[in-house]
């Protein structure tokens, strides 16, 4: 089977898995309602949904459009089922491709990205399952005030390491979006809660600056 055929089969499996997952996700509230004979009022669900849907449906669309090229085919189907895409699956895929010195969009990139995302999903699922099983014993440790700052700062710890690798190799491309984002977040701190929406802004800036530099022969 050549790579093109392999990708076609990956799409078929991916579609099967992700639509099955969508059905399972929807069955969970249905089963709960049936089991406990507790269908909620339409209005209460609509009101609750109004508080989150406008932002999270937008973020969901943006994430799909921006992260799909980075994740690869199988990685996309897997990541959007298992969740935590921007804070875990994308960094895991990027780190693995960087370490293996393969490029996204190539066969090697697709394989390495899939392996990284699948491994991240399996490890996360196992750890969370262990956490549930050992809930009583682990709760005091997890809620420990000593560990809290460490867990609160996972994203800076992650993007510090990942950022330095990418910036050092692509410093010209990084200048414009990095400078803009740092200044923007310092001036408007409340945007810290809307980082998902700002990812495409960063991408558009990076693409615009790169295109100009490329045309001028600086890249």
């Amino acid at each position, binding site marked *: 089977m050549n790579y093109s055929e392999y990708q076609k089969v990956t799409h078929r499996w991916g579609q099967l898995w992700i639509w099955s997952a969508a059905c399972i996700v929807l069955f969970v509230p249905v089963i709960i309602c049936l089991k406990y004979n507790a269908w*909620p009022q339409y209005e209460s669900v609509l009101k609750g949904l109004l508080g989150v849907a406008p932002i999270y449906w937008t973020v*969901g669309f943006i994430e799909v459009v921006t992260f799909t090229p980075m994740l690869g085919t199988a990685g996309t189907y897997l990541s959007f089922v298992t*969740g935590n895409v921007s804070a875990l699956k994308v960094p895991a895929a990027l780190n*693995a491709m960087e370490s293996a010195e393969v490029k996204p969009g190539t066969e090697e990139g697709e394989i390495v990205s899939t392996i990284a995302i699948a491994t991240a999903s399996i490890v996360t699922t196992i750890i969370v399952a262990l956490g549930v099983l050992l809930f009583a014993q682990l709760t005091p440790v997890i809620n420990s005030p000593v560990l809290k700052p460490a867990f609160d700062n996972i994203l800076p710890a992650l993007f510090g*390491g990942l950022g330095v690798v990418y910036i050092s190799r692509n410093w010209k491309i990084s200048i414009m979006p990095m400078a803009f*984002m740092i200044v923007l977040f310092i001036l408007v701190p409340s945007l810290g809660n809307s980082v998902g929406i700002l990812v495409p802004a960063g991408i558009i800036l990076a693409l615009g600056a790169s295109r100009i530099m490329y045309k001028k022969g600086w890249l």
Partner: protein
Amino acid sequence: MNNTSPSFDPDSTFMYGLAAAVIVFVLAQSVFFLVRAVRRASVAGMNMSVVRKTIGSTALFTLAPAFSIMLGVVTLAKFLGLPLPWIRLSVIGAITYELPAATSTANALGISLSETVSDPSVFSAITWVMTLGILPSIILPPLLIKKIQTGIVQIKTKDSKWGDIFMTSLFMGMISAFSGMVFSHVREGLRGLLPVAVLAVSAAAMCVCGLLVKKVHAGWLENYAMPFSMIVGMVFASCAASAFGL
């Protein structure tokens, strides 16, 4: 609302059974794609040590974020019991979405989330909002993936060098947004500077790893540099918070 169920326990055996079924599905999908990718690596003639290193380093790299996700389960378990947060944070969800979804529904129903939900109608309403509020994240990928990939292939076919720069720009755009976010609290004094310091320490740890790989030929470190720098950053956060009373 229908309150016909006389007793409701969000930690019931039924709920655990439901959660276990969902978790088995997620694991099965992950194992399926992992095995398929490893087999393809073999067929494509890839060095299998790269595959082993990718699995090892990613597993290590995932530990800290996985514990953070578990922390999210613990947070939600205070009012939703364990099984539902277990389901939600294993499929599609993230704590940054699930908590606002639960809070938004509770506000709409005029109830407090200070104690475990015991009304099944409230529980089901929260479950529906959590599910429907994030549904596009699972519906859109199968609908859009081929169109997005076709667009990327066209860009690369037209000009392969620009295609590579295009992909790098995508990564840089994402990294810049998340790195910029770290600076959003700097005006709050020492407490707000801590994330920036953690970012810098983690970046410095990564640089040290890079130097060790190049100068001392510590090639084994290359695959573990990312989890190592992350852990250094997190340990620093813990120590600095204790030292400065943050």
